């Protein structure tokens, strides 16, 4: 019931926010037709929803299906709206909330360029080893590391590289899938 009369003095939609924001990973299965990404992204901006991370690629070439993984931060009420609004888009097949399902594996890949010589170069290499990062390019004064894992691991690795000569980082955004035998 909508009877929680709050003493906010607010009006219309300016009600006091009583729900905490949550970070959720959504998987959106779409027809890969021209403009579909613009529809999804445009929906988020037009309705004031957040996008923390966005990953998109065609996954079934014969059927022209793409899978979009989007990480968003919102209250449960807004999250429900995000899902319903996404489902309203004509080329959207399915929207799946992996965080709500609670059993997803999430991975992200980052390429991290670090430049330096001497002790910091050795330390960078040692840390890369600890993080199971691969060296995919090297010169006498630089490395490019490829590191894969949860976003938190990438964050941590990048933070450690910062004082060791971090030049730049590129991240793929999150890819996520449910555990177990069932598809979405």
């Amino acid at each position, binding site marked *: *019931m*909508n009877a929680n009369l709050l003493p906010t*003095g607010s*009006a*219309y939609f300016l009600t006091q926010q009583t729900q905490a924001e949550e970070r959720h990973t959504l998987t959106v299965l779409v027809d890969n037709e021209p403009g579909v990404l613009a529809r999804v992204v445009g929906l988020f901006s037009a309705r004031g929803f957040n996008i923390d991370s966005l990953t998109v690629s065609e996954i079934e070439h014969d059927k022209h299906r793409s899978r979009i993984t989007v990480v968003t931060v919102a209250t449960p009420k807004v999250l429900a709206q995000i899902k319903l609004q996404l489902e*309203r888009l*004509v080329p959207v097949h399915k929207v799946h909330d992996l965080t709500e399902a609670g059993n997803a594996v999430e991975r992200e890949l980052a390429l991290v360029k670090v430049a330096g010589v001497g002790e910091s170069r050795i330390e960078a290499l040692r840390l890369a080893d600890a993080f199971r990062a691969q060296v995919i390019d090297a010169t006498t004064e630089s490395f490019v590391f490829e590191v894969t894992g949860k976003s938190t691991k990438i964050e941590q690795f990048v933070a450690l590289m910062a004082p060791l000569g971090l030049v730049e980082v590129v991240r793929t955004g999150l890819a996520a899938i449910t555990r177990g035998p069932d598809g979405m």
Partner: protein
Amino acid sequence: MAEQMTGAEMVVRALIDQGVEHIFGYPGGAVLPIYDAIFQQDQLQHILVRHEQGATHMAEGYARSTGKCGVVLVTSGPGATNAVTGLTDALLDSIPLVCITGQVPTALIGSDAFQECDTVGITRSCTKHNYLVKSIEDLPRILHEAFYIATSGRPGPVVIDIPKDVQFALGAYVGPQSQPSHPTYKPQHEGNMDAIRAAVDLMLRAERPVFYTGGGIINSGPEASRNLRELAELTGFPVTSTLMGLGAFPASSDQWLGMLGMHGTYEANMAMHDCDLMICLGARFDDRITGRIDAFSPGSRKIHVDIDPSSINKTIVVDVPIVGDVNSVMEEMIRIWRSRTNQPRTEAIAPWWKAIASWRGVNSLGFTNSDTIIKPQHAIQRLYEATKDRDVYITTEVGQHQMWAAQHFHFNEPNRWMTSGGLGTMGYGLPAAIGVQVAHPDALVIDIAGEASVQMTMQEMSTALQYGLPVKIFILNNEYMGMVRQWQELLHGGRYSHSYSDALPDFVKLAQAYGGHGIRCSDPAQLDSAIDEMININKPVIFDCLVSKEENCLPMIPSGKPHNEMILPNTADIGSIIDEKGKVLV
């Protein structure tokens, strides 16, 4: 083997196969092949407008008064951008439209060619769906799919952008499917039976129930209006409606509370506030309806029937959500109610009706009439009395006159009331009236207008004359953008910044200049005969009704207030009512 034809011929053929009889459009370089195909046939009648915005509103009026899909044809670039207002209007009011736009040839797309614009980019957020057709092979499927998407589920506008080379290309035409379907777009028609049973259980126990109905009933078709009447009779519950739903339930019924919301009646809003069960049928808890949402109907359980799942729990959290076509859900409600009882809850809700009677006693639509100057409310009442026994359709512009029309013109049938609710588009009424008149050539079609709004699309008078469409434009002329002026009185200390309609044209001469008939009336004693004159002239009429200038549209739920804190008529000094927080709201 499928029939071979050009893309332009496919467009015309597909429209005919979809049962389209009239389209509203304006030619230009990028749609010339389609206009050539139109020239070479006589099944499809094209109405040449004077501005593309007019075409979209005409198609909206046509669609809303017939239940059919409205069709618009415009050229690339400015043709498409001029159509954007009408497309957005149709999106917010859930009106089925198919808008075909020409585009520069595919090879030129992206080159900033003459009259090029990114039509699908611009219209993505103001359509239900849109297409850029890059290949002739896709064209027939897209044409039919567009009609399916526009008219099914929650209706809305669909744009098909067709580059000129695709219009010239030869391809195989494919007709419409007998049972249209789509791989990803699947509107849900049947409501969940457990939810409907739970809803009826609540209805059977309710002591202070109210039906809150909306435009969804109109969109669901005439049968939905019949079922609403049956459901109301069966239950004995009071009925109120949004602006968009007027006519679905007869205003002549004892169970009718009048419109609700910002300018709704006291009894409707108080019933919404004090009810213990709200049954929302095809409405969406718009901010004009709810007022302050954290004080919205605090003591009620809420049932929400909507075909669009995203409308549920969007602004107001409800107890029993039912996603489905409102007509089929009402049919089930009626069936289940009948399986339990054949009696309305007359006795159980008698105290509720008593409370409603006391609110009715406030006479919230009352106003102080005058015998020296025409009061706008009085003008609408006289217009209603003069036309109520005729086959009459009403459109409006946006503002005070629109609200007065909603309050004082009474509708007993659906599809008779065309107004811009969600977007609030000034300039909607005249072209919408023309669209209605195209669909109903023998009916009396009246645009209840304001002198400011009507000038936004006044050029469509020329369209009305060209096609012999005798629409009546009944202008409540108070020489102000009345609603703007009212809000300036409410919120800005009566500083009427740019809300005075200066340098007005002589509307009588203007009507004559277009080849129509002009009438001016400022004397209450002459009003009835002037209205009769308007009704009896078989050509477009501009009626310049000079009304009292600073009349406020009341009652009103001021910004930031709940339903039970309305400003009632004859309130002195409305400028002191709204607090600082309310002033930031629209």
